[in-house]
């Protein structure tokens, strides 16, 4: 009996020693790790990497789903950049949309977060009221609501009527249609606001106390403490907002369908039109790759700029510059 136990012990020790020295880890074989992540891994190859390469290939063909595709080289790209007015128009609209919606949404979210950070009583009721539009935001239902509110007889004009202002058909007027979409986006600032609120809670109170002892007023505190300390959160909201805004689809598609006179033809709607109304999948793939590069460049520029305006507590010694 004694012998067996010794044998077993030495076996166990041997096993432990062997596993410890192994390249992988203490217990498991690498196979188990790969087994667990296999759904994502298969998904990545089949539903992300392969489609990406496929779409790159399509972008050099005249693929239409109906006919056999033919390699056309850079033809699609050439046509996009030289002979496609709608492409230029959709770029313009998208840039205006990004420039109009992202900063205003961020400012609204930040200001409300700062107010809510102080008003403690009833905060959850305020949070619900402010978050609710974001909750239902992406749905087609809200797009329909908006179409009515900003129509000629919509309630927005009724509201203006209270001040004696004669409104127009905001959505049917090419010079204001994009703005009604931007207002819709700003209305949904709730989730950015909640993220700001969490960021504000992280700022140590003693910074404010110490600075008010030094005689700093609220405005100085806002620019010297709140903004720098919040800059990582601002950065996050900013970059996510820009990436999201470039891809805006549902409201432009449902409310205006790109019109009137292409004034709300955002890039994603134009891409959809080429791909799934005219089934020019090759051409649309080229558009998609241009979009990918555009987003990557803009996000990259924001990321590069971040080292000049984003301060992390760890490398700045509590909000002060190095």
């Amino acid at each position, binding site marked *: 009996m004694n012998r067996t136990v010794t044998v077993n012990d030495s076996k166990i020790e041997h096993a432990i020693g062997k596993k410890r020295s192994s*390249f*992988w*880890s203490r217990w*498991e074989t690498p196979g*188990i*790790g790969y087994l*667990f*992540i296999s*759904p*994502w891994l298969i*998904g*990545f190859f089949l*539903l*992300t990497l392969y*489609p*990406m390469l*496929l779409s790159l290939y399509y972008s050099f063909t005249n*693929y239409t*789903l109906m006919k056999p595709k033919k390699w056309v080289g850079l033809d699609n790209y050439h046509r996009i950049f030289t002979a496609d007015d709608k492409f230029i128009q959709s770029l313009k609209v998208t840039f205006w949309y990004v420039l109009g919606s992202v900063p205003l949404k961020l400012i609204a979210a930040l200001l409300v977060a700062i107010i*809510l950070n102080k*008003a403690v009583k*009833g905060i959850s*009721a305020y*949070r*619900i*009221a*402010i*978050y*609710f*539009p974001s909750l*239902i935001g*992406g*749905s*087609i*239902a*809200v797009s*329909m*609501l908006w179409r*009515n509110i900003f129509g000629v*007889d919509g*309630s927005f004009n*009724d509201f203006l*009527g209270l001040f004696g202002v004669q409104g127009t058909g905001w959505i049917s007027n090419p010079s204001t249609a994009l703005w009604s979409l931007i207002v819709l986006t700003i*209305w949904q600032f709730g*989730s950015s606001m*909640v*993220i700001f*609120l*969490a960021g504000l809670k992280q700022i140590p109170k003693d910074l404010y106390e110490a600075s008010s002892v030094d005689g700093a007023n609220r405005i100085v505190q806002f620019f010297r403490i709140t903004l720098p300390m919040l800059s990582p959160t601002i950065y996050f*909201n900013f970059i*996510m907002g820009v990436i999201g805004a*470039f891809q805006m689809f*549902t409201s432009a598609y*449902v409310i205006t369908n790109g019109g009137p006179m292409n004034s709300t033809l955002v890039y994603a709607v134009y891409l959809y039109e080429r791909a*799934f109304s005219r089934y020019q999948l090759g051409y*649309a793939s080229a558009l*998609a*790759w241009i*979009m*990918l590069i555009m987003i990557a460049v803009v996000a990259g520029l924001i990321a590069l700029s971040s080292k000049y305006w984003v301060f992390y507590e760890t490398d700045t010694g509590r909000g002060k510059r190095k």
Partner: protein
Amino acid sequence: MSFSAKNVRGGIRHILMILFCLLMVYPVFWWIGASLKSNEELTSASLWPDHPLWSNFKNGWNSVPGHSFTDFYVNTFGLEIAVLITTFVSCTLVAFGFARLDFPLKNFWFSILMLTLMLPAQVLIIPQYAMFHQFGWVNTYLPFIVPHLLASGAGGTFFVFLLIQFIRGVPRELDESAKIDGCSWFGIYWRIVMPLTKPAIVTVSIFCFLWNWDDFLGHLLYINSVDKYTVGLALKMINDSQSGTQWGQVLAMSLVSIVPATIVFAFAQKQLVEGVATTGIKG
């Protein structure tokens, strides 16, 4: 003196916030009123109609010939359940693998996962559509279910990331003691880590539900027969076919379509808002 000045300032702050919140929810009040209006009354400035047309809900519900919204709700909920289950299974397994197991190239795969988070959906829509078209999956629910089974559907990668972050916070000592008691890795995943990951799983499920409910573009692309329509597509259809005729019905049905999301929000409000705050999910 200063005490009352502080109160006055607080009072003003609250009044401003209440006014602001009213402005925020005003469109929703208008929506409720408008859903009960006839076309004639829709143009009036009043918030509440003089003669509420409750029939807008009944007629809107049956406004698609040959179908009622009951069918569209059944379709949508069926799809939601399939997507929730597949998301749960795949995302938790993958997250556990990344958070708890060591394997060669793990960091490489993790960076790839993070990169795909930033990928605009537009680059994948066209080739995926062409692929699913070839498989004969158009006008089935497979283009939604299969990607979720592979943790790659709408938001899937994000859910994996969120769960990884959460599981990393579960103490590893628990795994080790279970290991000593002879528990397999799958046992550790299922019996120890999963029960402790419940709050994150709830957050993921809520967002998965909401995002799929609102995945208008996906539904628009892949579903084209009316008997498979989801609520969003049915709304778009009555909106297109009825424009100018019965706006009240369209608004009534669109109001009904946000009820499930609202109920979910009402029950999970605190968790949802905190989930957004800590993880930065965009709603």
